[in-house]
């Protein structure tokens, strides 16, 4: 890349991310012509579970991410249940939905106000809001002050969402309540009534502040309704089991901005490592057979993330993909659309909470005694706030012999693959104008819209 700009660290996300963009003037506009995303941390989570008791998976894998621990706890429990074909009580299904939806809400609200907003509006004049890039801030002082007041209120709402989840989940983050066979806590009348108070306040916040604020910012920056399109390929594994063989957000996939929904076949998933700091000895494996051995340095590699591909192609995953596939938001594919879809998904979830509370059997069990088989394999797919999440495991002799995880950010922030196809965020960055080379805030806007979570993505996949 001739005119290379490096942003390292990219702040206001979870984990460690470096972005390199090649900038050239095309058609009179200085813009990104090429981009590379590098996950700059290797956690080596892969061997943590090997040899451990299967029941520990739900506890240990939650520690992959402190923002989205809940989906790891849920899907690890589901994968263990799949090894022995366990059924869980209705109360467990509902409590998992409720706590997972709360987790989406806290993550989404945190993402807009605390991770993204400062790309568009100036914060207070003190750390951690200073120093800040001041390029292209179009929102005036009064509106900025109002948005920052909402930033503070949102901190309180995020806290309250976590309190609401903890009513059933014990605590947040890192809940001990997820267990193969169900959920540890029995819902009481008192707990349900307590949760209802929170639901009302949270839904009101989403309706009256979050959605209007997202739309207000989008209106101030209308060109971001076109910028950051990316691959146009969306995938969702489906989430929030409604107990009637349907989900609140169904699984599916689309190609290149289509409205034609195609099925997801998990067997079509492969992971490539040609540009990743992992050995090439076993390339392009399905996650159930994934082999990962760190190799640093390595010629041509630039990231600790692997590059998962579906049928050889990169896919974007996340709220916009979920909402698009569910037919709930199909306005466009851009930076602004990612924020708008995330906010609207939040309202759908906030409004679903009451129904789930009403469906709980007061005092009824949420757990069916279950021991996974001594030898077996299992897999489970769900959605985390940031998109498609899968866990695959094998148990041998009553211990975990192999565990593999693909997180949403593995898809979105992936590096190039063996066909040299850039990952979704890398593609989305191309064509982004850059006004000030010292302060390329436009790059942050495109990256942040995907809400990348590098803590999740760099767990290194064979656990």
């Amino acid at each position, binding site marked *: 890349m001739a005119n290379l700009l*490096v942003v*390292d*660290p990219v*702040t206001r*996300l979870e984990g*460690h991310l*470096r972005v390199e963009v090649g900038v050239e003037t095309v058609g009179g506009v200085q813009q990104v012509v090429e981009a590379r995303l590098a996950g700059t*941390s290797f956690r*080596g989570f*892969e*061997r*943590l579970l090997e040899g*451990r*008791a299967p*029941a*520990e998976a739900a*506890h*240990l894998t939650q*520690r992959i991410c*402190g*923002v989205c*621990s809940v989906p790891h706890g849920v899907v690890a429990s589901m994968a263990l249940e799949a090894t022995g074909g366990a059924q869980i009580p209705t109360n467990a299904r509902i409590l998992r939905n409720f706590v997972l939806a709360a987790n989406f809400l806290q993550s989404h609200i945190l993402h807009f106000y*605390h991770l993204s907003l400062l790309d568009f509006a100036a914060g*207070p*004049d003190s*750390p951690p*809001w*200073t*120093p*800040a890039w001041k390029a292209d801030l179009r929102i005036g002082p009064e509106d900025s002050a109002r948005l920052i*007041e909402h930033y*503070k209120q949102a*901190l309180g709402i*995020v*806290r309250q969402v976590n*309190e609401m989840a903890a*009513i059933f*989940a*014990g*605590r*947040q*983050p*890192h*809940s*001990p*309540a997820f*267990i193969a*066979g169900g959920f*540890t806590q*029995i819902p009481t009348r008192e707990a349900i009534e307590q949760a209802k108070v929170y639901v009302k306040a949270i839904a009101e916040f989403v309706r009256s502040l979050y959605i209007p604020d997202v739309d207000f910012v989008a209106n101030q920056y209308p060109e971001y309704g076109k910028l950051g399109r990316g691959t146009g390929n969306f995938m969702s594994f489906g989430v929030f089991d409604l107990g009637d063989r349907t989900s609140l957000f169904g699984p599916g996939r689309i190609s290149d901005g289509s409205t034609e929904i195609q099925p997801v076949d998990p067997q079509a998933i492969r992971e490539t490592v040609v540009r990743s700091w992992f050995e090439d000895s076993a390339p392009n494996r399905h996650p159930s057979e994934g082999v990962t051995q*760190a190799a*640093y*340095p390595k010629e041509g590699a630039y990231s600790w993330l692997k590059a998962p591909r579906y049928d050889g192609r990169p896919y974007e995953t996340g709220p916009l993909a979920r909402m698009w596939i569910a037919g709930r938001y199909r306005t466009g594919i851009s930076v602004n659309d990612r924020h708008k879809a995330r906010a609207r998904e939040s309202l759908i979830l906030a409004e679903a909470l009451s129904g789930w509370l009403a469906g709980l059997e007061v005092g009824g*069990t*949420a*757990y069916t*005694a279950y*021991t996974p088989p001594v030898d077996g394999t299992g897999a489970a797919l769900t959605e985390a706030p940031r998109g498609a999440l899968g866990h695959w495991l094998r148990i041998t002799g009553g211990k975990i012999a192999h565990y593999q995880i693909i997180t949403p950010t593995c898809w979105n922030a992936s590096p190039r693959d063996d066909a040299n196809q850039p990952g979704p965020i890398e593609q989305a960055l191309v064509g982004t104008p850059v006004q000030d080379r010292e*302060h390329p805030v436009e790059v942050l806007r495109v990256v942040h819209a995907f809400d990348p979570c590098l*803590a999740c993505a760099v767990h290194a996949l064979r656990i």
Partner: protein
Amino acid sequence: MLITRRSFLKYCAAASAALGLDHSALRAVEQAAGGPDGPSVLWLQGSGCSGCSISFLNYISPNDPKDAADVLIRSVSLDYHPTLSAGAGQMVVDQVKKADNFILLVEGGVPTAFGGHACVPWSDGDKEITFEQAVRELASKARQVVCVGTCASYGGINAIGENPAGVKAVGVITGGNTVNVPGCPPHPNWIVSTLVSVLQGKTIPVDDRGRPTSIYGRRIHDECPFEDRGKARSFGVNGRCMEELGCQGPGTGAPCARMKWNNGINWCVQAGSICLGCTEPSFPNPVERRRGRGGGRGRGPRM
């Protein structure tokens, strides 16, 4: 353009007055910790999950500081936090480099594999800075190093098994005294109260694991309201002692049973689960089910 905290407090007062809020309380909290000329705070993240930061944001208290926003705006000058800082790239690296009177908070363990390149939190110009380098250098300049969470304190979950990233505790790297606030995550009150004490220059008595005795001095089991309620033989039964299902409460120093979590809403054992012992250097201890007399072999859950 850096403005002092004092001038920012005036801004806050004006802003809150504009919003119709009572700003008389601002003067009181201004003195809650540190003062305008007190040390700033640098918060680094290494090999971890950001869960300690999320837990910090859950902070709420009837006393000053009252919540996370209050801490950020009026109690500390958080000169760097990777998840909260507005700036990015070289701008924040320069901010970290010029800090000279600061408390260093470290979240996450320190990866040492591949010459430290298992974690590169930032670049300075063309030079990649490893987390190990950053911790060594900043710890040597810091007035105090505080380890937030079990990973920074003891290595934690990233350091178990074969430890392929070579993760070490911060104290092992610095060779110096750290104040440890373990927990996976730590309770927000533990983080904030320790930070405020450090900012106020108080001497913090610690136990043999570097933890403030005021927080970690008593074992969970000794304060557990379910300790004498009969033993649970299986999950799915609430309000019993979970010891036979692998509860680590008897060996875990922490005030969870008394303080509870998330604004006093709940805690692990009250939720019908077990204490995982997350404030101890042994975390995550392999949890083996301790079969009681009523536990049928091969039946029920196995932990």
